[in-house]
């Protein structure tokens, strides 16, 4: 607003006091701010050095090599108590990422369902969705995590009397047990086939669009994409001699054997995060759909498009433009909120880091590592979502 190069200061203009010159003034202010910053940092560092020396804590990241000596209840990579703090922290990071990815996936699904349900012509459905959003959004997330953990999952029966679904899934106090896939030699071929299928599917799609643009002829894109993505891996599965099998849980006399058990902390945290974030995503989706004027739907009808195509080609692409930016911040919120895991002891980055902090007293390093990891997650997510947002943004003149 204040422009440093006002032409009014030509010869003959009244002399301006040096501190009223916007340029000088801004220099003074910035100098003061910088001096203050340097002073604060200097004091903080001096105090930290003194305090750390008094507490006999060596600075630096050398402690990451030391033996951790504590157990971790969920370890995506191999873990033993004799391993280092660095590896423990890495496991925490992986657990955070796991919850974040699983949470984002299900929260998006549930959120879209809630958002659409709120706009449903069915009075009962829209009221349920409304009250779901109201109740969930007005209760603290930590409250909800504790509720699922202490009141729902802890009240599950003992392993002996597990709730069972089709004899495949079991729920009890120790978590939820699901069949565990076993990969034998040759299973890699299926993964390769899946990748090839995905690439081929998108190639077909772009070819079909080009052809349609050039000749007007349509191609069954959806069916062929589904066929490639699903069919190729299935074909590879049989060709390579069925290398994937499942280890099903067996209900023994006192316990379940086999299968893969999701620990209750993970289940409680994921359910709470998904339910909480979905309420916010639901509102975002509703706002996005409502932002598309009804005239667009009517225009689609007058062109003779089928209702499904109106939704796919006209309404959703326009709604997405409104939805994506706030959706991004909800994804970031979910990733950050996964730190509440520490409240129930799920071994995420904050929880494991907190244990390390208590054992070693390396507060500065641990907190710096947390902040670094969360900032990286935030930045990567927003770069991806911004890229996606730019792709779908309205192209104007």
């Amino acid at each position, binding site marked *: *607003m*204040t422009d440093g190069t006002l032409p009014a200061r030509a010869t003959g203009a009244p002399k301006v*006091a*040096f*501190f*009223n010159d916007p340029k000088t003034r*801004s220099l003074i*202010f*910035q100098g003061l*701010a*910088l001096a203050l*910053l340097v002073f604060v940092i200097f*004091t*903080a560092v001096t*105090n*930290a050095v003194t*305090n*750390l020396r008094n507490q006999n804590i060596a600075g630096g990241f050398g402690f990451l090599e030391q033996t951790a000596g504590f157990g971790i209840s969920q370890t995506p990579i191999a873990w033993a108590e004799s391993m280092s703090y660095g590896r423990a922290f890495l496991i925490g990071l992986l657990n955070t990422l796991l919850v974040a990815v699983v949470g984002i996936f299900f929260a998006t699904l549930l959120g879209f369902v809630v958002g659409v349900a709120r706009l*449903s*012509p*069915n*009075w*009962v*459905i829209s*009221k*349920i969705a409304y*009250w779901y959003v*109201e*109740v969930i*959004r*007005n*209760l*603290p*997330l*930590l*409250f909800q995590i*504790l*509720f699922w953990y*202490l*009141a729902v999952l802890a009240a599950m029966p003992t392993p002996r009397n597990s709730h069972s679904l089709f004899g495949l899934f079991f729920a009890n106090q120790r978590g939820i047990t699901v069949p565990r896939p076993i990969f034998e030699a040759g299973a890699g071929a299926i993964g390769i086939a899946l990748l090839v299928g995905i690439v081929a599917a998108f190639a077909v799609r772009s070819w079909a669009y080009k052809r349609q643009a050039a000749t007007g002829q349509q191609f069954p894109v959806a069916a062929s994409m589904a066929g490639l993505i699903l069919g190729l891996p299935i074909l590879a599965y049989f060709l390579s001699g069925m290398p994937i099998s499942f280890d099903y849980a067996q209900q023994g006399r006192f316990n379940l054997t086999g299968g893969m058990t999701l620990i209750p902390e993970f289940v409680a945290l994921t359910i709470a995060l998904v339910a909480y974030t979905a309420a916010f995503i639901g509102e975002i989706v509703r706002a996005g759909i409502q932002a598309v004027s009804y005239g667009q739907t009517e225009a689609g009808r007058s062109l003779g498009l089928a209702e499904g195509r109106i939704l796919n080609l006209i309404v959703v692409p326009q709604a997405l433009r409104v939805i994506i930016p706030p959706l991004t911040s909800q994804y*970031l919120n979910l990733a*950050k*909120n996964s*730190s*509440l895991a*520490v*409240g129930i002891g799920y071994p995420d980055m*904050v929880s494991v880091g*907190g244990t390390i*902090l208590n054992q070693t007293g390396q*507060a*500065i390093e641990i*907190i710096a590592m*947390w*902040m670094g990891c*969360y*900032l990286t997650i*935030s*930045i990567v997510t927003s770069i991806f979502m911004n890229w996606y947002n730019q792709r779908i943004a309205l192209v104007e003149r």
Partner: protein
Amino acid sequence: MTTSFTRSELLQPLPPPASLVGPWGWVRANLLSSPLQALLTVVGAYIAVTLLWTFIDFTIIRAVWTGADRDACLDEKVGRSVGACWPFVWAKFGQFMYGFYPVDERWRVNLTYAVAVALLVPLLIPAVPQKPLNAVLFFGAFPILAFNLLYGGSLINPWLSVVGWLAILGGITLVVGYLMSRVEGPPNMLFLKWGGAAIAVGILLLLLVRTGIFAVPRLPVVETRQWGGLLVTLVVATTGIVAALPIGVALALGRRSKMPIIRLLSVAVIELVRGVPLITVLFFATYMLPLFLERSPDAMVRVLVGVSIFSGAYMAETIRGGLQAIPKGQFEGAMALGLNYPRMMSLIIMPQALKLVIPGIVNAFIGLFKDTTLVSIVAIFDLLGGIRAGFTDPQWASPVTLYTGFAFAGIIYFAFCYFMSRYSIFVENRLNTGRRR
């Protein structure tokens, strides 16, 4: 006699078919418009009724209302399946509300609440006049009073110190103004006189505080370690929001400043704080702050610092949104009037920007109120922490204690947040008058 083949008067419109009007028409349109919708209605209604019934059944119908200990809430003692164990909540009520605040001193907390309500209610009702005075009292005087009452100590000294510091600051401003006016023309001696007087008065007041003459009427000190329950929840939330406004305004202005260093610092603070979870900010305040300072502040103070920085960074983005919504013409108009930057911002821009984002501010407050639950992770006992502590009391250990505690906490949190969100919608509708057609 002419035979007419056309009607001479209009035919009265027929009533709409019975299937389209009245309750039955509504049901057909909203519940049973197609077989799929009918199925959804049935399934949805079943789920809704089950959930609602479970809640009412537990909290009211099967609940136990009176009793002295856990025996009152045990199925085998009562002889039926027991729902909520409300005697547990009555017995622990003091702990849930005040934590370990001494029983004899709890009137101070109640008085603080009473003053808060007396100041807040008129602030929230648009028809009540004297809003600026009210706001100054609530955001300026009330925090000092609240601290004075809750923490205890001398009743007069804190006020004298605040007045003293304000006088010194005002005096310095006046003296600086005098120095500036000297450069431009004939010096304004009035500035110097008043400024000097204010500084002298301020120093005098601070010295008076030091002597301890006014230390006499004092309340017993209640350490913050003894605070707990809803009191802590409200203290943390209120401090957060009161501190968030000035921090947020400063950071938002800094972010839009043309001075590169100031802008860079503001952006760095905002993005750094917004990019990490609140819990790491709280850990930072609890574990790192004491390392950076010579004397470690009180645990509650550390948490309040963390919460203030956190909410300030979020508030900055809310306020930035408001600033960006102000048309450039308003800035240009202010400059054309010859206003300087502080006046332009405080008289023209900020009032409009803040008015635009009041709903955003209320939403930030709701978020902060919910986030206060996290302080229990750094060992400060808020409402949720107090209720969790209540579960461990063997005197009340029963299968329903846990659920009762959750029901109680849930009702309180929901009541607060729901009221705030309603208020935010109310304000939004009220402020929307200009753009509504």
